[in-house]
């Protein structure tokens, strides 16, 4: 148990420290790197909770894909640091209010879970601190809940993502006239017969081909 406690406090400290560093780092690339560190130690906290499936998904999705794109964009931006600093005082109250609201929400949720137990499954509240039944892996437990009780929400979330994806494609896809596009089929189907023409020009005349 002591080992787990040490691991928890270590990773919680890293998460919080990186979270603060994300907003306080001067260089935006460093901010993103700290964000990655925060994601990663949050995944470690998930593992400690026994939610290894969620932990791996957090790393795959956020660290492996989302943050790479962040980094990609931030690296290519030409950021004016002085201008970035200017807005700090103006946005501070709003940011603080949102952070406070989230903190209150988290406290409320935690106390609710601590007193009333975790999620309701089939209208029977699970005891506080209860784990999935033995012999059922993490992924299986999530799958059972996701595809039975919450299948409509799950499908709705999928639809939202699909719409977002189509929207991104529609916004960026432009067919400019006059742009020559590569047609792979034509290139692959090209043979010596279609791609080559033999001419025998007379001496001193040349050829138009």
């Amino acid at each position, binding site marked *: 148990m002591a080992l787990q406690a040490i691991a928890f406090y270590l990773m919680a400290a890293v998460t919080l420290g990186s979270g603060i560093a994300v907003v306080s780092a001067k260089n935006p*690339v460093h901010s993103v*790197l700290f964000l990655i560190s925060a994601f990663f130690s949050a995944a470690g906290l998930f593992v400690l909770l026994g939610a290894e499936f969620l932990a791996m*998904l957090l790393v*795959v999705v956020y660290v*492996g*894909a989302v943050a*790479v794109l962040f*980094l*990609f964009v931030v690296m290519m931006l030409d950021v004016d640091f002085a201008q970035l600093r200017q807005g700090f005082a103006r946005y501070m109250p709003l940011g603080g209010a949102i952070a406070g609201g989230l903190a209150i929400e988290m406290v409320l949720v935690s106390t609710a879970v601590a007193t009333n137990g975790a999620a309701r499954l089939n209208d029977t509240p699970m005891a506080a601190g209860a784990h999935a039944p033995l012999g059922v892996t993490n992924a299986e437990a999530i799958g059972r809940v996701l595809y039975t009780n919450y299948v409509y929400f799950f499908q709705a979330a999928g639809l939202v993502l699909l719409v977002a994806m189509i929207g991104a494609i529609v916004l960026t896809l432009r067919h400019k006239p006059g742009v020559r596009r590569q047609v792979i089929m034509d290139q692959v189907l090209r043979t010596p017969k279609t791609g080559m023409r033999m001419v025998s020009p007379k001496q001193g005349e040349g050829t138009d081909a």
Partner: protein
Amino acid sequence: MPWIASITRDNPILWFALTFGQIVVITIVLLLVVAFMIYGDRKVFAGVQMRKGPNVVGPFGLLQSFADLGKFLVKELVVPAGADKIVFLLAPLISVTLALGSWAAIPLAPGWVVADINVGILYLFAVSSMGVYGIIMGGWASNSKYPFLGALRSAAQMVSYEVSIGFVIITVILLGGSMSLPRIVELQAGGFWNWNILGGGGLKNLPLALVMIPMGVIFFISGLAETNRPPFDLPEAESELVAGYAVEYGSTPYLLFYLAEMSNILLMSGLMAVLFLGGWQAPFPTPFTASWAPWAASLFGLMWLVLKTAFILFMNAMVRAVVPRYRYDQLMRLGWKVFLPTALVAVAIVAGWRVYA
């Protein structure tokens, strides 16, 4: 290993010591294997070009990699003036840590895996998807044009091919119904007709070979792209970017990058062997190992894993030697327009087969 569990049931310190010992042993063996793998790679490359390859240091040039290692280590470490020093030095460390850390979840022999996590395959996927950070950070921190271009290329390339690798892995998960790598290997027991590349279930699932063989090929090619191997070595294309993200690196940091790249190639080959070619299972039924001592059975299994991995490494070296480098737009087209739709259809077919057949 089971015997470790039996010894260390109520002694966490002993458990820690034994696990730590395994990690140390595996890391050392891995580094030695990588050294000889580089030698073999160069020999194959040379053989294809009718050269002799490394043949001076040691018998048949076997110690060439160690000579190179010594040379890298004694060179001076140069950090470019405009570089972001911390990130510059952190990048190769991250690369090599991730590359070696992935081996924790690979089942090496019957019942022998350092960390038997029930989402082992996802762990590997997660770790390999983080591998891109070493390259991006190195390229950015160098504060130089070629490394930056190399880093951007590699970021786009690795993210793209990860998607198709993910879907290929899903087909394998669907075949076995488990995300634990030891379990996936166990299910492929009893001969090569039970391997996942042939449908993973004997004659009954043989029609799935029509789907799984292409999936194996996609995994192999995506693995090449993921590890920045030729013909997909655009992040370090020497004809365009000099050496890509590694231009400003020399000495030990470069050695770490090189080590990370090579052990990632080894990992991809090992993963291909585990996911598609039955891991440590022999290609024929092995009822006779039941009466063997556990260590003998383990060695027997390890031998098959090594043979399969070596075969895939050989294919890797041959591809490097005979295939010219891809153009960048063709690379992206291959990833997004060919592999991704194919893998998606394959996921649907395999899922349908699992439910209805």
